[in-house]
């Protein structure tokens, strides 16, 4: 029972994320890849994504803080973040990255600063939802394992 409720909650959360544009079809692909033999796949990917993104964002912040910004490096990082966010299906972050890259190409420092902030904002918003999601998943897992035992 509790498990069902939890599952409903989880579905509701994920659906809302889709509706908001936080997630896109790519995330659905990941969900499909998770099955009995790979139960923690989504969680794994999400966790990896969060770690990676935070690292990149920290590096980006450092780069943007410099007096003379090396846009090629910045672009490289943003490109990377864009790649991973698109692979996970985190749409908003990806879109923000695309915008960021635009500014990079133009070597627009102010634009880049703003874009970086947008990316961060989107990311942190997403992260909090992911955290909830993972917690729910863990609890569901715990229930199901308990039930099996």
């Amino acid at each position, binding site marked *: 029972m509790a498990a069902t409720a939890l599952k409903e909650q989880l579905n509701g959360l994920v659906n809302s994320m889709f509706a908001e544009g936080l997630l896109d079809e790519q995330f659905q692909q990941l969900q499909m890849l998770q099955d009995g033999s790979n139960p923690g796949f989504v969680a794994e*990917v999400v966790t*990896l994504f969060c770690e990676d993104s935070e690292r990149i964002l920290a590096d980006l912040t450092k780069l943007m803080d410099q007096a003379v910004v090396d846009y090629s490096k910045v672009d490289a990082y943003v490109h990377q973040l864009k*790649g991973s966010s*698109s692979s996970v299906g985190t749409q908003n972050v990806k879109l923000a990255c695309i915008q960021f890259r635009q500014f990079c190409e133009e070597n627009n420092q102010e634009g880049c600063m703003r874009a970086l902030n947008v990316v961060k904002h989107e990311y942190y918003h997403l992260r909090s939802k992911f955290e909830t999601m993972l917690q729910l998943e863990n609890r569901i897992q715990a229930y199901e394992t308990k039930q099996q035992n």
Partner: protein
Amino acid sequence: MAKVQQMPPSSVDTSSIYGGSSAKVREPIPKDFPVGMRVLVVDDDTICLRILERMLLECRYNVTTCNMAASALSILRESKGGFDVVISDVHMPDVDGLQLLELIGLEMDLPVIMMSADKRTSIVMQGIRHGACDYLIKPVRIEELKNIWQHVVRKKWQDNREAEHSDSFEDSDRRATNDAENNSSGNDATDNAIKSQKKRRDSKEDDEGELDNSDSSSKKPRVVWSVELHQQFVNAVYQLGINKAVPKRILDLMNVPGLTRENVASHLQKFRLYLKRLSVDQHHTGLPNSLSGVGSNAKVPFLGSLDFQPLTATGQIPPQTLASWQEELLGRPFGSFAMPAMDQPLLQQASMQGAKSVPVEHGIAFGQPLMKCPATMPTEFSQSNVAVRGLSSGFPTWSSSKVISASNLGGLSNDSNLQVPVLQQQQLHPVLSESHHAINVQPSCLVLPSQASNNFQERENPVLANQNSVVLPTQSSMSFQSGNNPTPMNQNSIIVPARSSTSMQADNNLGLTNQNSSLTSFQGGNNLGLINRNSITLPSQPLTSFQAGSSPAPISHSSSLKKSSRIVDYNLLSSNSSNVQLGEAQVSDEVFKNFTVLNSYSIPKSISSSVSSCTNVSMGWWAQTLGGNIGPVNQSCLMPSLSNIQGAGAMSQALPDQGQGKNLDLANLSNIRCGGTLSQILPDQGQGRSLGFIGKGTRIPSRFAVGDIESPTNGSSLNDNGEILNRGHLGFNGDV
């Protein structure tokens, strides 16, 4: 030390896909393919890597992941034949994905799929140019991955076809039929395979001139279509009339003992296909006319499609021959220069940067392009396959013992260590017709004029050294040294007129070192990229020294030949699209343009006119020489096209001879790998000048951007010399 491996006939039967002899023995495709297909994924992004891995496992493939290109390479090297396909990201911190692509193509000749979040057409184009067999845009969906096995199958087929074609024709025909029948997937790769096979001389199986191909049914001694033999054949065909030439009658006319009707039949078939292809390309050249006239056209095409068999034993060009050849080239209207369309598989591979394939492709895998330099050469050819007519007896032997056929680029990988570039003797079918001789220089052929001392040294390199035929005039000494380079070293043929000495050194380069050129000394040390050297043919003043220091990027040097002020040299490196740098083109007063891009070699002609066309991996353009010869050749693979243009407007490049000997017929070399394939066909305008490509030295660079294939404006006149070359058109396609 090419390995000659013969596949027992039985194995041919069992696997239709893998039939044929090949230096690389491939295992037959497993029954439940594509399940269990071995994929190597390379991406620095851990997340993508994990997701891909999961997806590929879901497709039931066998997956290995790697997040660094360097480790991927070492994995691949350690387990040769252990993978079926590689998927690699384009943007990686340590090694550029494109470079990796070329390397893999060159060294291992595996299909490589690129992927990136970057979906700009230009980037995708680069990937294709460098030889990617597919390009996926991130985020990658599982449906796309489910289909990647087709690339494996297609490639195997193509390889088989090429192998077959390099073997005796009959066998290949037979095998082709078998393959076709057995091709259940029904993909139309077959057609492509045939085409690419034509274009790409992948004579992996031809090791050192040996035909070790086992045909499906029985082993037949391979017929080596030597220059003389081919000449006889062509004569017979013309005598009978191209439309009326039937194998039986040709055979009778040729009156060659030991030749069977089947040999002739298959040879004729190829010849016809080639002619057809030429005629299609040249709409305004009267092919038939040319056929009747010079017949060079015919030849040219033929050359393209012919597999060059390794040079004959001697592989030497006797001085006299060379001299006479030069004379021929210079004095006569040039026949078409046929550039065989070689697939440049290799080149591509070589993205050559390092050990293997050059980006390109250039692959740079080098498909061994056949280079044909039609030159009006005197008919006799000595044994050497180099279709350098006019060479009198025999060719100088190669000092180097090994010839690496360019075509083996892909196949070279079979030897991880090439001691010396092996000169593959390829049979050159001279396109000889009255007026023109085609010089086919096989990538691997090295024709050295007497007194040429070539020292090829390839030490410890798992690289494939492709040497395109080098035709050295007397007194040329070439020493190639490529030490410790894990990359294939391609040398485009260099035709050096007397007193040219070329020394190439490519040490420790991770990329592909291409040298086209004669008379230049290249030094490339520790370059990680592709070093392209364009060769410059200088008729008498050798010069050009390329030096590519430890550059991680492809370096192209263009050497300019200055010869009677008409030399413009372009270096166009297109192999590494990203890093191609155009070398300096020096334009001397006279315009002599040589462009050699990666694979291009120019045949220096003593007379300024010689123009060598270079095939470049990604772009090959040739400026023409004085004679208004243009020989652009563009090949992604290393297929240098030699075009010698003589002052008289000889054309080097296989151009259908319009009767003037100026034809530029550039076979298209498809490059699989390197760069894209550029096929250029220059129709002969019938004017003495054909332009292959023009570019002034300086212009060229701008014209050819890496990754861009621009067809030179049609026959733009050579500006430098103020000559207006008639150009046929160059059909360059930038597209792969």
